């Protein structure tokens, strides 16, 4: 009896004397959690890279499209990649990347799991060595990649394969999470309302469940490599 349970719970809450009438009002400006004084692009890039390294992720800075393409291809080769699970290339900021990957004989699987080929797609996806994506933004002070879903931008390339390669532009690095949220707020949180999923990814998958010993790559990727294109 969901309807009545709903009324019952809400009724009880409403009938109660309200707790915390003296709770502080919503701050007109919130304190940010992390500290980063210098917010110039170079400082943010440096901070992001430091955090990535501390998280046991890797980052590569490249000057232009061509260098980005070469870097991605070199990394794919280093993982002996035969198959990747990838976002639509329109959302990965490297010109000519799709052609280069195809030319290398690497199979590209889009993460489409809603059609009648779901079982085949998932079986193939499971065999992919690398997940290749862009990102919505990166937060410098925590070494975080920010994602929202949308057409061509699925979730599983970020989580299923053992390696996650993400390409971003340097201009996508914001100082901290609060800045990303402020960007959403400026657009009325529309991006969140219209999309099913957001995700912050901060370094490779890890666990400390067995005697607090740090182990990477438990269920998600054990390697996260971020290629940052200047500009």
């Amino acid at each position, binding site marked *: 009896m969901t309807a009545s349970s709903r009324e019952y719970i809400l009724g*009880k809450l409403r009938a109660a004397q309200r707790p915390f009438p003296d709770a502080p009002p919503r701050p007109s400006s919130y304190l940010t959690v992390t500290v980063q004084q210098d917010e110039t692009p170079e400082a943010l890039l440096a901070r992001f890279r430091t955090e990535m390294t501390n998280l046991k992720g890797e980052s590569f800075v490249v000057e232009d499209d061509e260098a980005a393409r070469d870097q991605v291809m070199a990394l794919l080769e280093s993982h002996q990649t035969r198959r990747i699970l990838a976002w639509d290339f329109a959302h990965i900021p490297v010109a000519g990347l799709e052609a280069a990957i195809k030319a290398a004989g690497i199979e590209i699987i889009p993460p489409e799991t*809603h059609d009648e080929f779901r079982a085949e797609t998932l079986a193939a996806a499971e065999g992919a060595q690398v997940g290749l994506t862009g990102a919505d933004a990166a937060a410098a002070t925590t070494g975080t990649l920010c994602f929202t879903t949308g057409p061509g931008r699925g979730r*599983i390339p970020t*989580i299923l394969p053992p390696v996650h390669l993400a390409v971003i532009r340097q201009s996508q690095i914001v100082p901290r999470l609060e800045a990303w949220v402020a960007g959403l707020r400026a657009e009325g949180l529309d991006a969140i309302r219209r999309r099913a999923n957001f995700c912050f990814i*901060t370094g490779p*998958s*890890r666990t400390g469940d067995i005697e*607090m010993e740090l182990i990477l*790559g438990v269920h998600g990727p054990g390697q996260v490599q971020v290629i940052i294109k200047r500009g």
Partner: protein
Amino acid sequence: MDLKANQFDHSAVIALEDIQLRKAVGHATNLADSRRRAMMAELPQAQALRQQGRGAKLRALHDLPELLEKMERSVTAAGGHVLWAVDAAEANRHIIDICKRHNLKRGIKSKSMATEEIAMLDALAAEGIEMLESDLGEYIVQVADDHPSHIVMPVMHMSKGQVRDLFIDKLAMPYTDDAGEMTAFIRRHLRQKYIEADFGMSGGNFMIAETGTVVIVTNEGNGRLSTSIPRVHIAVVGIEKIVPTWEDFATLIQLLPRSGTGQRLTVYVNGFTGPARPGEPDGPEEFYLVLVDNGRSDIYAGEYAEALACIRCGACQNVCPVYKQVGGHAYGWVYGGPIGSIVTPLLNGIENAAPLPFASSLCGACKQACPVDIDIPDMLLRLRHDLQSVQDPFWQVSMKAYGFAFSSPLLFELGGKAASLASRAAATLLGGEPGEDLSAEDLNLPYPLGGWTQNRDFPPFAERSFHDWWRDNREGRIS
């Protein structure tokens, strides 16, 4: 999970004599706490941030009914379904109904204290629905047919050797002493399960009312796999997990891992706003949110509403001198440690968890560690008073005696840095006579106990052994 909180004193004694358990719990809590300290120390405005986080939770509680309605509207607008559960049985019924409606037989889930609280695994099993835990720690718990002993580190009570033996015994894992190889074995073992699962389940660390977003945090990525691949996602969340705005969330989502695991951010902070939208290539086609009351509205209406501000980081457990000695199982229910000693009696009836408010030395470390500054010691103290005024006259008399008994050795010893019981147990192991008067220096134990004693202060034995005291005072009085 069966409630055994009234057996706390008995369970605590058993735990105290379990050297392995104490070693594991001591190691894990010390490490987690030092990481928390480091993470908070790097924030110049740490205290102000705690108050900012606290303010967010208190505002949320003040406006709880309105925010829940807003959450419901937002989730529904996003194409999801919201179900309300007064108690555990109703929550499980909702979940089973969803399974029947979509013909779901095999599920995979990420860690959730709420599903632990409603004993969902048993309820699903009774309907023939398979449900696999995917968090490594929770999976170990499931394979061992055990219960989590800590809010964020479910198997902190186990040693690597115990995990290894369990995997060899139950899963035919090839012998290894390497935690990395054990983890890799489980990764392979669970891989196919994500793909085969009909539905994924999660709890929720936060619900952001203004957009209808349920947020979970995982480090392993199991939560993201369980909620990205299967066609149906069911999130089971306590009604108190709500926050009004994204800015409030942005503060709390950073305080949680700093306090809990000593990270700046949990690896995967994953938020769900309804099912996959048209054009999105993956993600669930159906999204259900089960809002669980199960006693929370009673807490809300009472004197202890502050307990609902808890964000379940586990920091209070890691600093609690009692928890550090006995681990989580002794508390006899889902939530152990300081916050458990409040929530367990409040959710189950104080008479069913009478020892817990006394399982504290009121040293205040929990309040100090709490990222939202919950006044745990004050609530424990008030619960002690409440116990004395429980209506039933018979109960009243016995509880007075009980309260009195608890002002005596056991809790005092537990609460200080004492561990005199442990020193006794250790000395007995070393061939000494129980009750023999050894000094602290005598107790600098050789390997393998040495590492354990090095960092701990070992006072001389209590003059009277606990067992004597127990026999004389307590045995048989409270079941």
